[in-house]
């Protein structure tokens, strides 16, 4: 691991490395998760962060949005949230005697959807079109969303009180789902001794311009994918469809997501081509929320992804 990490840093003493380093300064002891989140953004995907309250989900999303220099809005999802609260609403303007559309928080480059599974399915689904189509339809009018556009959502594990589990269709729209987990002892100690995270976020200056981010996103799609690697990805997908361990096989969209995320990961590692290791690094996050192991409950879903990787040989 040491060897690899060193390489990665050497290859990218660039804005990207800068973002990672500075995010690591605020979110302590979560380098891997930060990398995954970054890879997700570089792969133009939406990110879902899932964990119990208080481990820094919201902080991570704020930090990422700030460091990337993007315009972001936060929506706190609650059970009485209405679609109009997300998309926007038309209000009659007395002066011009017309309805004027007041854009909702969705019209921003990053949406921080906090505790997304606390909202009713109706409100959740308002995000659907925006996430997939990068456009919003209100009052019969379709309006494009800014570029880049992505959603960083956080959610509590579904066994917690007052949650509406995300429908599978919406889960599938998130490229990755990552879990933060508790910080280790050293990180927690540093956290307890250190400054207030909110203040730190407020002080953040962007480490990257929008143009740089778009260039990196485009570069990620150019990372070479060989036939041998496609064979491996296909073997993984087919295993989920043939094996008796999973409730449902991975969709073609999941396969694409796996490939995109792997490309972004390879690029972050400074490679020109995708290796099976890249697929294996991102697979638990990409596949975890789309696969359901037949014998397991919530806690075993991540294990299902590991199970998949363990059982499929690299061709």
């Amino acid at each position, binding site marked *: 691991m040491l060897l*690899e990490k060193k390489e990665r840093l050497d290859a990218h003493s660039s804005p990207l490395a800068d973002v990672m380093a500075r995010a690591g300064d605020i979110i302590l002891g979560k380098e891997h998760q930060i990398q995954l989140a970054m890879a997700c953004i570089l792969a133009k995907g939406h990110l879902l962060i899932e964990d119990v309250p208080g481990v820094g989900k919201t902080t991570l999303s704020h930090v990422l949005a700030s460091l990337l220099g993007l315009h972001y809005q936060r929506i706190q999802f609650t059970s009485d949230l209405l679609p109009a609260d997300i998309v926007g609403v038309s209000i009659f303007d007395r002066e011009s005697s017309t309805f004027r559309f007041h854009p909702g928080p969705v019209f921003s480059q990053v949406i921080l959807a906090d505790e997304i599974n606390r909202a009713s399915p109706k409100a959740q689904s308002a995000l659907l079109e925006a996430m997939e189509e990068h456009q919003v339809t209100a009052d019969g009018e379709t309006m494009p969303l800014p570029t880049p556009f992505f959603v960083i959502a956080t959610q509590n594990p579904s066994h917690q009180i007052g949650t509406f589990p995300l429908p599978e269709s919406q889960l599938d729209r998130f490229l990755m789902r990552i879990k933060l987990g508790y910080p280790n002892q050293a990180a927690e100690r540093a956290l307890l001794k250190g400054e207030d995270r909110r203040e730190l976020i407020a002080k953040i200056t962007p480490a990257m311009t929008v143009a740089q981010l778009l260039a990196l996103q485009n570069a990620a799609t150019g990372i*070479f994918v*060989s036939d*041998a690697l496609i064979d491996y990805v296909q073997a993984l997908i087919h295993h989920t469809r043939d094996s008796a361990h999973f409730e449902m096989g991975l969709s073609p969209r999941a396969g694409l997501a796996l490939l995109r995320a792997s490309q972004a990961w390879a690029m972050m590692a400074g490679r020109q*081509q995708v*290796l*099976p290791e890249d697929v*294996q690094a991102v697979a638990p996050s990409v596949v975890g929320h789309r696969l359901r192991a037949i014998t397991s409950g919530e806690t075993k879903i991540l294990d299902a992804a590991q199970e998949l990787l363990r059982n499929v040989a690299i061709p």
Partner: protein
Amino acid sequence: MINQGALTLANIMWLLAAMSFVIAPHVSHLPAWVTATCVAAGLWRLWIARKALRAPPWWLMAIITVAITVGAFFEYKRLFGREVGVTLLIVMLCLKVLEMKMKRDVLLVIFLGFFLALTNFLYSQSIFMGAYMFGCVWIFIATLIGFQRINTEATIRERVIPAAWLMLQAIPMMLVLFFLFPRLSGPLWSMPQENQAISGLSDSMTPGDISSLSLSDAIAFRVDFESVTPQSQELYWRGPVLARQSGRGWTPISTEERSQLNFEKRSPPIKYRVTLQPHNKTWLFALDLPAALPAEAQGRAFFLADFQMRSREPVSQLIAYDVTSYLGYRTLDPLTPIDRQNSLRYNSNLNPRTIAYGKKLAEDNPDPKALVEKLFTLYNKEFTYTLEPPKLGVNSMDEFLFETKQGFCEHYAGSFVLILRAAGIPARVVTGYQGGDINPITKQMIVRQSDAHAWTEVWFDDLGWLRVDPTSFVSPLRINRGLSAAVGPQGAFNIMMEADKLGILRQLRYSWDAVNSQWNQWVVGFNADRQRNLFENFGIRDVDWRSTGLALLIGIFIAGGVVGGVLFWRVYQTQKEPVVAAYDRLCAKLALLKSNTGADLTRTPEEGPMDFLQRIASHHPRLVPELKPLFDQYIALRYGQLQEQGQGRGQGQGQGRAKRPSHRRGQPSGHADRLPNRTAADATAQFILGVRRFRTSRTTNSTAR
């Protein structure tokens, strides 16, 4: 594990179809109620599969089983033997189909189905049956494939094609088992035979019998002549000798056994090998007269005083024997008083005109030879040869000789002997086969049932028993050129053959016979003797069951190794590119490393190259400087852009240029475009060479080049 889902309608239908195929040839000799039970069980099973019902309860199955066993006992009056055994096997298998619930049941049914396919050979060993059983096995394997599917239903293609492949792969093993399995001869291994009516010559002769026989095209036996093939008119294959006139017909007289025939040889010996089709009688056919009993049949064959050759057991399976005959001979045994009496006796109540004619002839011609001459003229001038003579009454010979004057060999032989006996000359009827046609393809002579013939033997005091064929007086063609020449197209016999001017049908018939003959020789008739001959061809003598057993084991290993090797090679060829193969070799070399911590350094199937290198580095850091370039090359070739451009034949050619490695790996794509294959091929060659040179025992400062 076959769960309930595998017992689907389609699978059940396949199984039932396979069962129907394998049982179908048995239906002709099964009792009707057994067939009905099987059909009912099949339909019931189908109904259960359609409606997803339960199998019948165990007590009902028990009652049915007992009832069927009792029924079989009453049908056959016993519970052991071929017929009852096969019947019980079939009906129990059908019941098993009815009650199967688990994989175990399915496997049992299918494996017993294979065994059932085998039982068909107890009834017929023809080429058709062989092909049919191949088909049955094919269907059963296809069925088995269907039952092994877990989630999805197998299509017909997915069943039939893999099944065919499986059978093809089994062929070497099949040949080894067939040729090398020790052949034992003994009562344990002989086929259980029960009485069956097989058409052929019969023990008695009354006009009409041989007429129907003449129409049968079935093969009686085949003959391979060692050197010269005798002329058609010399080919008299002796069968039963009929010396007694009983009623209107002729029957044999029992005579004493001989181990040697006593005669004077007057011509060079003719050596030949007879391959006799099973006819369930004891007759062994040979040309008049055989010098000695066949060596193969020592103790199991004997001669009779009337020159017949017989077997002690009925010929129930294909046998072959070598005989030497002398076509020119003079018998030396004297005519005993009893023989004379037997050869002169006739039924004086019937055929008064014939008897009177014979007596008058004897008065006119005191010399027996003159008398025979006289008869020759009579037959030659006034009689016609036909296979469809008019029906004859009680005094058949009178009617034939003086009224209809039409008939075939039986009529001539019968009337001739009767006249001679009335004239006081000892004579008897001899039946057997006459002639035979040569298959131009195998040069083998085929004697068919239609070559059945009856002729006579007349006793002359100075010549002994002399063969006289009255049919040849009437129709020399019958003797010289065969039956079809004699009867012509107006006869019922083989009008089709006559219409076949170009000889296509004839040619086909000969070809088919050639195939059949090979089948008989190499498949059905492959017994201990032939196996011994086979071994002797390879210079192995004195084989017994131990040496064949050993050869069998070796053969199984070789056949299994060859098939396994070919299959492995195919998989390897289709799946592994040179780069992957070289990488696998590298991993195999690394797997031999003993890590100092005792960890296993075998690459796990899901371990990527970088992870693997990482793991090795943590145990053997000194190897990294040498391994890192190799792994980089591998990654570039397998996952990099180089791999894309070097795909196809270029990689294979690259191996030939391994001696001139270049260092152009990882060049900008503009350059690679100009020499795409070259670059990739060189990189591949370099990588393969690097892997070949890599030694795990090297220290860090030595390099691969």
